[in-house]
């Protein structure tokens, strides 16, 4: 009679080990399975975080590992919080965050609302709209650079068509006032489909029976939107805002490819500034303090946002 692989493994296990395994409680076995994951999380997430916090109180420079590391206390934090350049970077990030989230939510929800209606070619349009999200941020940054070219770029000609302005008279990525809008437009183009998909999931989860009941009560389309569609899709919208808020706070690749943080510092977002401090100026202690500051800000915002999200879900 042939034995199953499991039986053969059990038979091959030495008696001593087999006795030990038989004596383990369910709780111990559960810990044995969970322990590698906990160890990995500690090694990959928690340890670097604690190490970064420790480095933020020192003058350590990673390009000079043999130099003596001095404990500087809160000096790195004091320097960051009195630096007008970092303050300007924070303002650029706030401008980018507010406008990208507002535009993406408005356009994304509107698109989801339209796509949710049954019409011919619905699936094809969904695929076309979702296309920008599938591209690499580096690719998107590269081709928007071409689109924004004053001489050959399509964007300036579209603006000329709409407003009559001379296409060679302005440069989206070379102008101090226009460059912040150039990165907002490119990011909105790329990530609105993501918001649309989340909103679409929310809209499709609303049962038709609720709308049918509203029809019976002679509720207008406007009233149905404000009392059924929007409240029921709100948790999904809030989730989209949370995801995009955290992602855009860390935005790096698209903006570096598009403007490189320029002209001047007008599109230097916090992550770009942090990267320069850490890997161009090699001020590891200073940049660690910078990273801790950003972490606390995002963590605090995410905490209150998750609380608000849970409250909306409970309703």
């Amino acid at each position, binding site marked *: 009679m042939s034995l199953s692989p499991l039986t053969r493994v059990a038979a091959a296990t030495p008696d001593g080990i087999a006795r030990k395994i038989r004596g383990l409680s369910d709780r111990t076995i559960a810990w044995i399975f969970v322990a590698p994951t906990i160890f990995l999380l500690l090694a990959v997430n928690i340890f670097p975080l604690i190490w970064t916090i420790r480095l933020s109180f020192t003058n350590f420079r990673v390009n000079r590992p043999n130099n003596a590391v001095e404990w500087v206390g809160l000096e790195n*934090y004091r320097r960051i*919080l*009195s630096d*007008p350049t970092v*303050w300007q970077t*924070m*303002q650029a*990030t*706030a401008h980018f965050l507010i406008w990208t989230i507002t535009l993406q939510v408005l356009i994304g929800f509107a698109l989801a609302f339209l796509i949710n209606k049954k019409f011919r070619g619905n699936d094809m349009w969904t695929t076309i709209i979702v296309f920008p999200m599938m591209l690499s941020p580096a690719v998107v940054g590269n081709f928007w650079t071409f689109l924004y070219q004053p001489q050959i770029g399509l964007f300036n000609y579209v603006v000329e068509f709409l407003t009559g302005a001379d296409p060679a008279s302005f440069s989206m990525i070379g102008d101090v006032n226009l460059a912040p809008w150039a990165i907002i437009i490119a990011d909105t183009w790329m990530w609105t489909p993501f918001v649309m998909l989340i909103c679409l999931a929310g809209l499709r989860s609303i049962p038709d029976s609720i709308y049918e009941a509203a029809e019976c009560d002679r509720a207008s389309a406007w009233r149905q939107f404000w009392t059924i569609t929007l409240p029921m899709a709100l948790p999904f919208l809030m989730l989209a805002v949370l995801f995009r808020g955290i992602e855009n706070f860390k935005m790096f690749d698209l903006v570096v490819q598009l403007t490189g943080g320029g002209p001047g510092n007008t599109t230097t977002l916090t992550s770009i500034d942090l990267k320069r401090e850490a890997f161009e100026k090699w001020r590891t202690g200073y940049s660690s303090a910078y990273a801790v*500051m950003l972490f*606390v*800000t995002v*963590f*605090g*915002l995410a*905490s*209150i946002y998750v*609380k608000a999200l849970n409250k909306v879900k409970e309703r």
Partner: protein
Amino acid sequence: MRNIVSGLLRLRRGPWEMLATILIALGVFMLMQPFAIGLYSYSFIVTLVGTVMFIIVSHFPE
């Protein structure tokens, strides 16, 4: 108003979470506002206090 003060004194989660939320929101506003660098300088400590408070008070009873 009296309920909020009473909730704070009796260490209830609701009012304390509201206070922590206000501190975090205020800290983030101070961090990113374009009006006064003085506000920016104190933004991190306000956000940090709010965040730590939020973590602690979320374990308070309802």
